[in-house]
C-alpha cells in the first residue's frame, strides 16, 4: 500500500482506485451488507466467483455495500464499460449464470433490472458510467428513490468498503486534504456552523457550536467520540453506513480532530455489529498504512489516532454521559449534565461526541460549502437524514430524505402505502422512545422541532409504519417494555415510573384495566418526561403519551368493552374471525356444529349471534376473511357462506316452526317495558330481535310498506331475494316484535308521541338521502340518484333506465345500479374518478358487473350533464382526472385536468354517496355533528335527548349491513341495561352449546370453495338470484378447513 505523502502519491492512489471502479471489462458488484448477506448475498458472491473463475470470464467481481432498498434484496450491480451501471434486484444463486452470460452479451438481465445509474454524484467527485438501456428506468425515477437525496449514503452500494483506493477514487479524503492544506480550523468550524448541520443522533444540537466548544476548551488532552451504539429496534442506518462506507466516517472524524484540536478519536460501536466492526477495523488499518491516520497525516504534520471500542449492548450507552462512563470501564449509567462533555468528558478531559451520521456530513460540507448544504432541507434543519422505513409498508429500506419532507411522502411515495391494501393508521418515529403520529397528521414535515411539538422525536431515524392490524395499546406496551428493560435504574421516574406504566399497560392488554388507569398513565407519563435524569428517560413515555392522545378510543375499548379491534391482545378475543366480526359471531362454534351434523344447534348458535344470517351470508363485507389465519396456508375460509347455508336450510324446510319455538325458549320473562324502534332496516331489526327476547314490548316503525330497510329496498333482487328477507323478518316478528309500516316518524307520529308512549326509543334510520353533486344538468329528465332508482325498482314502480346508462361512482350502490340497468337491457358505463383498486365496492360485485357487460371508465369525473330541447339527457361531459397527493383515506386524491370528453347517454345514475335525512330531528333536543350525523355516546349509544338512543347510518354515515347490525346489538344491550338497571343481561340469551375443543392436528388439504354465480349471459337476463351456493358436501369441507384458532391450549 502506498503511503500518501503529497499530491502525486495521492493522485497515484486515486488512479489505482478508478482503475478498479471503472475497469475496461465488466464489473459485477454484489451488495454485501448484513442485510444482503441475510438474504443470501454471500452465496451469490461465491457463485459469481466460481463461475467467473471456472469459465475464465474476463470480468471483475467486487463486494460492495448496500444500496438501501431492503425489500428488493439481494441487490447486485453490473457495469459494462461505457454503459450505465445497472442494479439488479432479488438475485438468486440460480440467476448467476444467466447474469454472467447476459453481461458477456453486453446486456443487463431481463426481468431483474431494478434501475440504472448513468452518472453518479459522489459529492466529492462524480462518476460517469455511460448511457444506454432505454427500457430500464433511471434510479431517480423509481418511486422508492425518487424523493431521496443521497448525501450521507453518497457512496453506499457503489464502492467496495474494503478498499481505501476506491474511496479515494471517488474523491474520498480530498476534503481532509483541503482542510489540512488550508490549515484554518476556525474557518472549517464556521463552515459547519453556516451549514446549520445538527446532531443526527436525535437531539439535533448544532454541530458547529459543539465543535467550537471543544476547540475553545483548554486542556492538554481532548477526545472526539463517534457514537455508533445504534440500539433502536428496527433501526440500522448507522450499521449500513459503516458497513458500506467506513472511510467516510474516518475522514469526518479526522477533519473533526484537526479542527477541534484533538489527537485521539474513539468509535464506540455495538458489538452486535460484527460486520461493521470488521470493516471498520480494516478501514482503520488501511488508513494508517496509507498515512491518513497516525503521525504526520498526509505529510501535513498533524497527528491523530482512532481506536474502536465495542459496546456490550446496553441501550442506555447511546446516551453520551453513559457512553463515557462505559468507555471509562464503569457501569453505563448517565450522569447529570452539567458538566457537559465539552467541559468534562472522557477521563475528565474535554470531549466531543457526535453520531455516526453527523460525521458523514462533514466531508461534503467541506467539499461543497455550507450554501450548497443548506439548499437541502428546511430552514432550521438543513441537509438530509437517513431513516429506516420499516413495518407495514410496501417498500421497506433505508431512505435518505431532505429534512422537512412530509411524512406522507415517506409512507405513500417512497413506501408506496400499506401492504395488501391494509389501512395505515400511524407511524412511530425516532426509535423506542419516539411517538406515534396518526394518519391524519401525515402532512407533518419531518424535522426536529415539528416532531418534538407533536410529542415525538427525530431520534436516530427509525420510522415504523403501523396499520389496522396493530393494536396501539400493544404498540405502546411494546415500546415501554423495551425502554423499561433498558432503563439504567438510576433515577426514580424512569426506574419505578416506567415499571408502573408497564404494569398498567399489561393490565390493559388483558382487559383488566380500570377507567382510572388512563389518568394514572397520563400523570406518570408526564412526570417521567419532565423529571427524568437523562434524555432516554425524558423521551421514554412518548409512545405512551402519543398513543393515549391520538388513539384514546382504543384504550377505552380495552377497558369498557374488553375489545381489541386489531385482534392483537389475544386474551380479549376468541379468534381473529370472531374479533373482526362486528356482531362477534362465534364462528368456530357454528363451523364445528355444522361439521358435527348438529344442524339445529348450528342454526340456534348462528341466529342468536346474528339475527339475519341468510341476508348477511349473501351481502356481508366479510371482514372475517381478511383476518382468517387459513389465508396463510391457502385461502381464507368462506365463513359467511356457511352461515347462509345453515340458515337457508331451516328457512326452506319444515324445521322453521320448530326452530322458531326453540329460539322462543330463550325469551326472558316480560318486563313490561316498551321500546320503540324507528327504522326497520338491519340496525332496527337486530335491536328489535334482542330487545324482544329480553322481554321488552317492541314496536318497530317504518315509512315503507314492508320492513327490511335497505335489505328490502336498496339491495337488488338478484343479490338478495325479497323472500329471504321476508323469512328472516318473519322469525323476528315471531319473537313478539310488532311492525308498524307506512308510518313516517316526524309526520304521522312525532318524536314527542314516542317519548310519551315508550320507555326508550331507538332511532335506526338509514342513509336514504343522496348527497347530491351540484353539476349542471341534474334537473334533466333521465338523471336519478342511485338509491332512489334502486328503491323504485324494488317497489316495482315503473322506472326504466334508457338504452345507454352512465353510472357515476365506485361504491356498492353504483355497481348495484349498473347491474340492475344491465338486467333491464341497457348499455352501461361506470365512471369513477379514481382507479379500479380504489373502488369501495365489494370486488366480487365489480367483477360480476364487468362479466355482465358493464364498461368502466376510470380517472374521470362528471363535468356537466347535457340535455336536449325536450329536457331529456343527451349525454354527459366528463373531465379526466390524474392522481395527486395522498389524502386522509390513504388513496391518491383525483385532480381534474382540462381534458373534457363527451359520452352519449340517455340516463345518468349518480351514486356518489349517501347521507341521512336529519331534518325531522332538528330542534328536537339532539346534537348533530358537523359531518351531518347524530352525536351519541360511543358505548351507550345515548343521544343528547334522554330516553333516545341512536345507531347505524345515523351515527356513522353510510356503512354496510354488518356494521349497521352491530349498532342494533349494542343498542339492545345498552337500552336493556338502562331499563332494568342491570349489566349485560343480553349475555344470558346466548346459547350454551357444547362443542368440540380440539384443534385439527393438521389442516385439511381442501382448498376454499367460493360461491359461484350463474353464467353472466344467463343471469343478466333476469332478476332472479344469481347465486349458486355451496352444496352440503362443499359446505362440510369448508367447515372442516377451520384451524380452530379459538382453541388456545392443546390438550
Amino acid at each position, binding site marked *: 500500500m502506498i503511503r500518501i505523502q503529497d499530491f502525486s502519491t495521492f493522485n497515484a492512489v486515486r488512479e489505482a482506485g478508478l482503475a478498479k471502479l471503472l475497469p475496461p471489462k465488466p464489473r459485477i458488484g454484489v451488495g454485501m451488507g448484513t442485510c444482503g448477506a441475510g438474504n443470501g448475498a454471500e452465496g451469490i458472491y461465491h457463485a459469481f466467483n466460481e463461475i467467473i473463475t471456472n469459465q475464465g470470464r474476463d470480468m471483475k467481481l467486487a463486494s460492495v455495500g448496500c444500496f438501501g432498498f431492503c425489500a428488493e434484496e439481494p441487490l447486485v450491480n453490473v457495469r459494462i464499460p461505457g454503459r450505465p451501471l445497472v442494479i439488479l434486484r432479488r438475485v438468486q444463486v440460480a440467476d448467476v449464470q444467466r447474469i454472467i452470460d447476459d453481461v458477456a452479451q453486453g446486456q443487463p438481465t431481463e426481468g431483474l433490472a431494478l434501475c440504472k445509474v448513468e452518472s453518479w454524484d459522489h459529492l466529492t467527485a462524480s462518476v460517469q458510467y455511460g448511457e444506454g438501456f432505454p427500457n430500464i428506468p433511471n434510479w431517480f425515477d423509481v418511486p422508492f428513490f425518487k424523493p431521496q437525496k443521497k448525501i450521507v449514503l453518497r457512496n453506499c452500494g457503489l464502492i467496495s468498503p474494503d478498499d481505501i483506493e476506491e474511496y479515494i477514487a471517488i474523491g474520498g479524503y480530498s476534503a481532509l486534504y483541503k482542510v489540512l492544506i488550508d490549515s484554518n480550523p476556525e474557518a472549517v468550524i464556521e463552515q459547519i456552523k453556516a451549514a446549520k448541520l445538527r446532531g443526527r443522533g436525535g437531539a439535533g444540537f448544532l454541530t458547529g457550536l459543539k465543535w467550537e466548544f471543544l476547540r475553545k476548551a483548554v486542556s492538554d488532552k481532548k477526545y472526539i467520540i463517534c457514537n455508533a451504539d445504534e440500539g433502536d429496534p428496527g433501526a440500522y442506518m448507522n450499521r449500513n453506513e459503516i458497513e458500506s462506507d467506513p472511510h467516510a466516517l474516518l475522514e469526518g472524524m479526522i477533519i473533526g480532530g484537526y479542527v477541534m484540536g484533538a489527537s485521539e478519536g474513539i468509535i464506540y460501536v455495538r458489538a452486535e455489529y460484527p460486520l461493521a466492526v470488521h470493516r471498520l477495523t480494516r478501514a482503520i488499518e488501511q488508513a494508517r498504512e496509507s498515512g491518513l491516520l497516525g503521525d504526520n497525516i498526509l505529510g501535513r504534520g498533524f497527528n491523530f489516532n482512532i481506536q474502536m471500542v465495542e459496546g456490550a449492548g446496553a441501550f*442506555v450507552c447511546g446516551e453520551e454521559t453513559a457512553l463515557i462512563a462505559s468507555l471509562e470501564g464503569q457501569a453505563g449509567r448517565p450522569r*447529570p449534565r452539567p458538566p457537559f462533555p465539552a467541559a468534562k468528558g472522557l477521563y475528565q478531559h474535554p470531549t466531543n461526541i457526535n453520531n455516526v451520521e453527523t460525521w458523514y456530513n462533514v466531508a461534503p460540507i467541506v467539499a461543497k460549502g455550507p450554501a450548497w448544504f443548506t439548499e437541502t432541507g428546511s430552514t432550521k434543519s438543513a441537509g438530509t437524514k437517513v431513516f429506516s422505513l420499516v413495518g407495514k409498508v410496501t417498500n421497506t429500506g433505508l431512505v435518505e430524505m431532505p429534512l422537512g419532507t412530509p411524512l406522507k411522502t415517506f409512507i405513500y411515495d417512497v413506501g408506496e402505502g400499506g401492504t395488501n391494501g391494509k389501512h395505515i393508521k400511524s407511524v412511530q418515529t425516532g426509535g423506542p422512545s419516539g411517538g406515534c403520529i396518526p394518519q391524519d397528521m401525515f402532512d407533518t414535515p419531518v424535522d426536529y422541532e415539528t416532531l418534538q411539538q407533536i410529542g415525538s422525536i427525530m431520534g436516530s431515524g427509525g420510522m415504523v409504519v403501523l396499520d389496522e392490524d396493530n393494536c396501539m395499546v400493544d404498540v405502546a406496551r411494546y415500546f415501554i417494555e423495551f425502554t423499561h428493560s433498558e432503563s439504567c*435504574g*438510576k433515577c426514580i421516574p424512569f426506574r419505578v415510573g416506567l415499571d408502573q406504566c408497564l*404494569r398498567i399497560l399489561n393490565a390493559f392488554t388483558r382487559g383488566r384495566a380500570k377507567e382510572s388507569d388512563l389518568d*394514572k398513565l397520563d400523570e406518570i407519563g408526564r*412526570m417521567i418526561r419532565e*423529571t427524568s435524569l437523562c434524555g432516554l428517560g425524558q423521551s421514554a413515555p412518548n409512545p405512551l403519551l402519543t398513543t393515549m392522545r391520538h388513539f384514546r378510543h382504543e384504550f377505552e375499548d380495552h377497558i369498557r368493552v374488553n375489545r381489541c379491534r386489531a385482534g392483537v391482545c389475544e386474551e380479549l378475543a376468541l379468534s381473529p374471525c370472531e374479533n373482526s366480526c362486528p356482531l362477534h359471531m362465534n364462528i368456530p362454534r357454528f363451523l364445528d356444529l355444522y361439521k358435527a351434523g348438529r344442524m339445529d344447534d348450528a342454526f340456534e348458535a348462528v341466529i342468536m349471534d346474528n339475527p339475519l344470517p341468510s341476508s348477511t351470508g349473501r351481502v356481508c363485507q366479510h371482514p372475517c376473511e381478511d383476518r382468517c389465519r387459513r389465508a396463510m396456508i391457502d385461502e381464507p375460509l368462506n365463513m359467511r357462506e356457511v352461515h347462509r347455508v345453515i340458515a337457508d336450510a331451516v328457512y326452506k324446510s319444515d324445521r322453521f316452526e320448530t326452530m322458531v319455538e326453540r329460539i322462543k325458549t330463550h325469551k326472558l320473562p316480560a318486563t313490561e317495558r316498551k321500546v320503540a324502534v324507528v327504522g326497520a332496516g338491519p340496525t332496527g331489526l337486530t335491536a328489535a330481535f334482542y330487545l324482544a327476547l329480553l322481554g321488552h314490548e317492541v314496536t318497530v316503525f317504518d315509512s315503507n310498506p314492508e320492513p327490511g330497510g335497505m335489505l328490502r329496498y336498496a339491495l337488488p333482487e338478484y343479490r338478495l331475494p325479497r323472500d329471504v328477507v321476508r323469512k328472516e323478518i318473519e322469525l323476528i316478528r315471531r319473537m313478539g316484535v310488532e311492525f308498524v309500516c307506512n308510518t313516517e316518524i316526524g309526520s304521522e307520529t312525532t318524536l314527542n308521541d314516542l317519548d310519551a308512549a315508550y320507555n326508550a326509543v331507538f332511532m335506526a334510520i338509514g342513509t336514504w338521502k343522496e348527497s347530491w353533486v351540484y353539476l349542471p344538468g341534474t334537473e334533466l329528465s333521465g338523471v336519478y340518484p342511485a338509491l332512489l332508482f334502486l328503491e323504485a325498482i324494488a317497489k316495482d314502480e315503473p322506472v326504466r333506465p334508457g338504452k345507454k346508462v352512465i353510472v357515476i361512482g365506485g361504491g356498492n350502490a353504483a355497481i348495484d345500479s349498473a347491474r340492475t340497468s344491465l338486467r333491464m337491457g341497457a348499455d352501461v358505463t361506470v365512471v369513477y374518478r379514481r382507479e379500479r383498486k380504489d373502488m369501495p365496492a365489494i370486488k366480487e360485485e365489480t367483477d360480476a358487473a364487468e362479466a355482465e357487460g358493464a364498461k368502466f371508465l376510470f380517472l374521470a369525473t362528471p363535468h356537466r350533464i347535457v340535455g336536449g330541447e325536450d329536457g331529456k339527457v343527451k349525454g354527459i361531459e366528463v373531465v379526466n382526472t390524474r392522481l395527486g397527493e395522498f389524502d386522509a383515506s390513504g388513496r391518491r386524491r383525483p385532480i381534474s385536468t382540462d381534458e373534457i370528453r363527451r359520452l352519449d347517454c340517455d340516463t345518468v345514475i349518480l351514486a356518489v354517496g349517501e347521507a341521512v335525512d336529519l331534518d325531522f330531528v332538528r330542534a328536537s333536543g339532539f346534537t348533530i355533528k358537523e359531518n351531518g350525523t347524530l352525536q351519541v355516546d360511543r358505548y351507550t349509544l345515548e343521544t343528547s335527548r334522554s330516553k333516545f338512543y341512536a345507531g347505524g347510518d345515523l351515527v356513522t354515515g353510510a356503512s354496510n349491513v354488518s356494521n349497521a347490525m352491530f349498532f342494533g346489538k349494542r343498542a339492545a344491550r345498552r337500552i336493556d341495561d338502562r331499563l332494568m338497571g342491570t349489566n349485560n343481561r343480553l349475555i344470558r340469551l346466548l346459547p350454551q352449546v357444547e362443542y368440540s375443543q380440539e384443534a385439527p392436528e393438521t389442516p385439511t388439504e381442501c382448498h376454499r370453495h367460493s360461491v359461484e354465480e350463474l353464467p353472466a349471459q344467463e343471469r343478466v337476463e333476469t332478476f332472479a338470484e344469481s347465486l349458486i351456493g355451496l352444496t352440503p358436501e362443499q359446505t362440510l369441507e369448508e367447515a372442516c378447513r377451520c384451524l380452530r384458532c379459538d382453541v388456545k391450549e392443546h390438550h
Partner: protein
Amino acid sequence: MPGQISIRIDGEYVTAQVGQTILEVARANGKYIPTLCWLESITPVGACRLCIVEVSGVNRLLPACTTPVQDGMSVTTQSEKLQAYRKIALELLFSERNHICAVCVSNNHCELQGMAQKLGVNSIRYAYSFPKLSVDVSHERYVLDHNRCILCTRCVRVCAQVEGAHVWDVSSRGIHSLVVSDMAKPWGEAVNCTNCGKCVNSCPTGALAEKGFAVEEMVKRDGKVTRLAARRGGQQ
C-alpha cells in the same frame, strides 16, 4: 467579592458563589427543597428527582442538587406542578419495594417516612409491586435489608468518597437494580469493608441498620459522616 453572583429564589434576591449548586444556595438561605439522595459534602447524583425546581427561561425542570447557579437565575422551588411530581416520585418509591414501616427498625426515624409527611402523602395510588427481596445478615454488626432500600446510593458514595473502601456498588439495571457489596458477595465476606458504619449512618431508611435494634430503635447519624467528609476536603 470575586465569584459572587446574585440569583432569585422564590422571588427573593440572594447572593451566591460561582460553582455552588442551586440546592446549596437555597439551603444557605433557609429555603427548603426536599431531597433524598443528596447528602451534604458528598458528590450529588441527581437520582431521586425530589429536588427538581423551575428556572425561568428554561423549559425543563432542573435538579437543584446538580445544577450550578448562574448570575441572574430565577428559581422557583414550590409550585403545584413540582409538588405533584415530587409526590408521584415518593409514591413510586413506596410502591417499588416492601416498606412495612410498622415493623421497621427505622420506623419514626426514616427520611422516606418523614418525606411522606412533608409532602402530604397518606396513601399510595399505584399498585404495590411486592417484590421478593433478600435480607443480608452475614455481616457481624450490620444488616442490609433490600426491602427498605430506595437506591439513593448514599452508601455507595460515602464508602467510596469518605471511607475510600469502595465496598458498595449497584448491580443490574432498571427495576432490578440492587445495592451490592464487594462485587455481589455477602456483606460479611466483603474483604474491603472496614466495619466503619458510615454507610449505615448515611442510609436514609432502614435498609442499612445495626444489629441488635428492635422496631423504631435505629437512629441514624448522618451528620457524623458529612462533617467527616467536609473535613476531608468535601466532594472528590
